């Protein structure tokens, strides 16, 4: 009885302190942005730099809202995301296949490894002009380049991942009578998945980084990179800033929501890594 009353009393108190804790956390996270934003605003209003080159935050916000309402910014963003996803899908399919093949067959490893290790260390963007010449300006070359560049981390990680599957798991599955297909599906794939997902995460980050630059070079009609690059000609610094904000938000969302979720559903649930 005594216990019940103390719990009844302390429960709302605890909820209150939890709410206060959350509020404190939010304030703490916002504070640095407020400071930086304030400094930015002061410098912009002080007129040290021309306003066209160093817009105030209101300018950036208003052009952001205007572009969003008129549908220009969403159109750019959607085109960029579609390009990113199609390039990344190519990279995922080919990267995982090649990586797994390399790890499972010595012959495939001997064939692919030299090619991969020669092409991988060259920065992805250095291939861009070559791809532009071969496949023309526009969508095809940008998607292919994104796929090509982001395939390398996926290949390397799937390769290491499959190799890192414990020998004893494979042998015990075999001695319990698993055939090749079941061995692959139930032992090798789950065992290598943490590595493969890491590879995909790295690949996606690289794809995102390259794509923005490729859109500047490849003269695609729509796309965030192109929007930023085009705005430079008209000194629309506020449009550029709005584009950069959208790019940051998409990048953060890809990392936080897409991959965290996939990890929770697969690797964490299977107990391969701690959440």
């Amino acid at each position: 009885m005594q216990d019940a009353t103390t719990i009844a009393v302390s429960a709302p108190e605890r909820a209150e302190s939890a709410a206060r804790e959350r509020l404190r956390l939010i304030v703490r996270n916002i504070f640095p942005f407020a400071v930086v934003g304030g400094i930015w605003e002061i410098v912009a209003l002080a007129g040290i730099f021309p306003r066209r080159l160093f817009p105030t935050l209101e300018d950036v916000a208003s052009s952001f809202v205007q572009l969003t309402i008129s549908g220009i910014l969403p159109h750019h963003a959607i085109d960029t995301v579609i390009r990113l996803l199609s390039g990344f899908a190519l990279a995922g399919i080919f990267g995982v296949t090649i990586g797994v093949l390399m790890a499972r067959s010595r012959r495939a490893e001997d064939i692919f490894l030299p090619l991969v290790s020669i092409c991988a260390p060259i920065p992805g963007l250095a291939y861009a002009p070559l791809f532009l010449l071969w496949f023309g300006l526009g969508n095809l070359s940008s998607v292919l380049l994104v796929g090509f560049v982001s395939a390398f981390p996926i290949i390397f990680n799937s390769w290491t991942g499959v190799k890192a599957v414990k020998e004893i798991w494979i042998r015990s599955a075999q001695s319990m009578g698993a055939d090749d297909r079941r061995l692959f599906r139930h032992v090798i794939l789950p065992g290598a998945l943490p590595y493969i997902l890491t590879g995909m995460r790295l690949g996606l980050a690289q794809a995102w980084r390259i794509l923005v630059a490729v859109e500047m070079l490849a003269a695609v009609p729509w796309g965030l990179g192109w929007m930023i690059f085009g705005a430079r000609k008209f000194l629309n610094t506020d449009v550029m800033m709005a584009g950069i904000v959208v790019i940051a938000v998409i990048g953060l969302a890809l990392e936080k929501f897409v991959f965290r979720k996939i990890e929770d559903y697969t690797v964490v649930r299977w107990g391969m890594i701690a959440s």
Partner: protein
Amino acid sequence: MTDNRQNLRSAVRAAITLTLAAAAYEALARSGYFAPALLPTLANVARALFASLADGSMIVHAAFTLYRVLFGFCLAVVVGIPLGILMARFQRVEHFFLPLVSALMPIPSFALVPLFMLWFGIGNLTTVLIVFYAATFPMVFNTWSGVRSVNPLWLRAAGAMGADEQKLFWKVIIPGASPFIITGMRQAFLRAWIAVVGAEMIAASDWGLGWVIFDAKEFLNTDTMLAALIVIGCIGFLFERLVFGSVEKATVQRWGMTRAAKG
């Protein structure tokens, strides 16, 4: 013995693969199916490479690129390591900088190139700053997690044995965090190398390997492009293997940190 033979067979197979790939490319180039301007033969690429090396132009381009990348990278190291250490040691600093760092990190450095071009013009300053921006974040992040992951037991043991703050810092924290810091430098250099090529293409100046590639595109000099690509790949590879490999050997491995990290 069998291991040796296995390795030999791998090497032979690798050589065969590369020869076959080169032969396939050569056949494609000579077949005339594609325009020779787009798909130069290997001999032409080699000629372009040697010609540009011999007249020194490629070396000057490489020197400009290296100057930019190293300048930016050193700035990133000078700023990134102290910031990372401060963030790991003082909670107040961490609370201020961590949200900023995590918000700025996902912005690709290339997105800032047009903005920096407007602010700082075309040329060295813009490229160096882009490299700096690209390289700082991995540096900060890795230093931060490295210092935080120093085993608290070591800190307490050193404290119990009478180490003062300064000694604790130099003898325990820095060596303990060094594997992470060196990983951070590696990642930072990789990113810097990517960033410098891109920045040189977009914010074109007169010199630099990225600019060579982009400029050669305008004149359909595919052989020069491929030659510059080879130079870029070789420099990146050399830095990755020789410089960082030997730094790792001289510090982390000598202090026995990699073994400690594994065990």
